[in-house]
């Protein structure tokens, strides 16, 4: 990519996001909860309005013009997702309601493929979405859940991963980037080593997709999942990428319309991919808007996004560490623009409450990753997560607000 395109014009980008002009509790909004949900550019909002204003109709079934237009737009969106993830075929892209839904499709699908005593491996850094469905799978099948532990920096212990892998290992699932700490996991190695013992791999890309453009073919990953709402897209839409042969061998997750070939009361045969996993009317508008969101982010460019966010991360880390008694959790050299921290002897909930009063939106709590909090023996953290539309000036406001909260609370 050209150097001049690499430079991201944040002031211009901010103009694309109407919500950034909002005030909260009398102060300009400083939105640092991007790891939970990203904000929506006008172009995506327009696509949503356009859909409901012009061609709202059910897809894949009507002969009329609106239905055809909606179907075309939805399938174009699927192609955009395919290209973005570099999947080999567009039917390897299942549009779901989010990363959680995607993981559940796979975890449920493995119910008949695992037997008692088989092993599946999870990482210590997971979101509950990538833990609980597998625990449920273990309950159904008698498979055993093994955990790759983490170190103090919030990195996975790859030496122990090596020891956990064996010929009983059937599946490995881990996130690409940890939502609670921001650690970027070495998924290339994780995948390669799992494949070497014949295990398949699901990567939870919910947190990586906002920062990194994944190439599922280069990764040779079996399943990759993501959520549109963390990628400037709408809520309630997500992706399950699966290798064609895997998706063909897994059973459908839900029964209903769309997912059938023939239905009689004696026997129903299922539709081919991707419809087999898309029972019922999907979020048509959301899928289309997701395609627009991907275009938007690709126009800015993921290299430029990553460069700029790393700059924000370095700046934010240095500034926050100037505050006495502040400790950052997740200190890997390989991390994205997520800073999880606490102030000595102050509860994160209190800090979050005061920050909100000053218009600064952060997340507090366990971030749906209780095992990580247990590891550090803390009730939770304050998490500031930066996106490409944030600025250093906003980080200054955060730092000032944290100082004030600290003063009030100690």
């Amino acid at each position, binding site marked *: 990519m050209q150097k001049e395109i690499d430079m991201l014009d944040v002031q211009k980008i901010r103009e694309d996001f109407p919500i950034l002009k909002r005030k909260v*509790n009398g102060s300009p909004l400083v939105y640092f909860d991007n790891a939970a949900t990203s904000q929506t550019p006008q172009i995506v909002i327009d696509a949503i309005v356009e859909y409901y204003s012009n061609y709202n109709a059910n897809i894949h079934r009507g002969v009329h013009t609106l239905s055809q237009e909606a179907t075309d737009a939805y399938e174009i969106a699927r192609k955009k997702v395919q290209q973005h993830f570099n999947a080999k075929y567009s039917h390897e892209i299942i549009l779901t309601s989010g990363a959680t839904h995607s993981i559940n499709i796979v975890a449920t699908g493995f119910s008949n493929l695992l037997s008692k005593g088989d092993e599946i491996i999870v990482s210590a850094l997971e979101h509950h979405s990538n833990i609980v469905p597998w625990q449920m799978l273990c309950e159904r099948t008698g498979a055993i859940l093994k955990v790759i532990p983490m170190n103090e920096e919030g990195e996975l212990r790859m030496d122990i991963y090596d020891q956990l892998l064996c010929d009983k290992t059937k599946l490995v699932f881990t996130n690409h980037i940890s939502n609670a700490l921001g650690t970027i996991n070495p998924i290339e190695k994780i995948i390669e080593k799992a494949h070497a013992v014949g295990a398949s791999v699901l990567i939870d890309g919910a947190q990586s997709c906002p920062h990194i453009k994944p190439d599922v073919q280069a990764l040779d990953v079996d399943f990759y999942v993501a959520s549109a709402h963390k990628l400037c897209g709408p809520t309630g839409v997500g992706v399950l990428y699966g290798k064609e042969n895997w998706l063909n061998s897994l059973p459908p997750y839900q029964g209903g319309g769309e997912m059938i070939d023939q239905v009689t009361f004696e026997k129903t045969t299922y539709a081919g991919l991707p419809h087999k996993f898309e029972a019922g009317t999907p979020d048509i508008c959301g899928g289309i808007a997701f395609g627009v969101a991907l275009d938007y982010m690709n126009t800015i460019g993921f290299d430029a996004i990553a460069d700029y966010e790393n700059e924000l991360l370095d700046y934010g880390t240095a500034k926050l560490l100037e505050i006495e008694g502040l400790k950052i959790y997740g200190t890997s050299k390989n991390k994205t623009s997520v800073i999880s921290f606490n102030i000595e002897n*102050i*509860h*994160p*909930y*209190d800090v979050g*409450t*005061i920050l909100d*009063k000053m218009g600064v939106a952060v997340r*507090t*709590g366990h971030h749906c990753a209780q095992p990580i909090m247990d590891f550090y023996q803390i*009730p*939770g953290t304050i998490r500031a997560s930066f996106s490409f539309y944030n600025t250093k000036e906003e980080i200054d406001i955060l730092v000032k607000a944290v100082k004030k909260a600290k003063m*009030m*609370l100690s």
Partner: protein
Amino acid sequence: MTIQEIQEEIVDEFSMFDDWMQRYEYMIELGKSLPLIDEKHKIDENIIKGCQSKVWVHAVMDNDKIEFTADSDAIITKGIIAILIRVFSGQHPKAIIDADTNFIDKIGLKEHLSPTRANGLVSMIKQLKMYAIAYQTQLN
């Protein structure tokens, strides 16, 4: 004083503050001055679920009046608890059951009463009232 009178008194106190900072500073003060719950009552059974911060509540009845003690690991939550305890502690179970908590709104802490806020204040009020209902049943 009746619950109603205490609530009015609190509303009066809070009306002296001009902005959120003063209100929160006062609440933090209240939180710090909350008489601590006996360590032996800080057990899991007394924890109120649904809070980001831990909240413990304990109740005893003495002379037909309920005495509450409580604690939290978050200071703002503790401040709110202190206010609630001031309102409810030392009252007859029936009065606690019948009391409304609209005064929270009037003192500018409405956001803490939202059922979706993960501070458990709503669950806490429910818990205080549950204790009152339990003791009321004993009295009947």
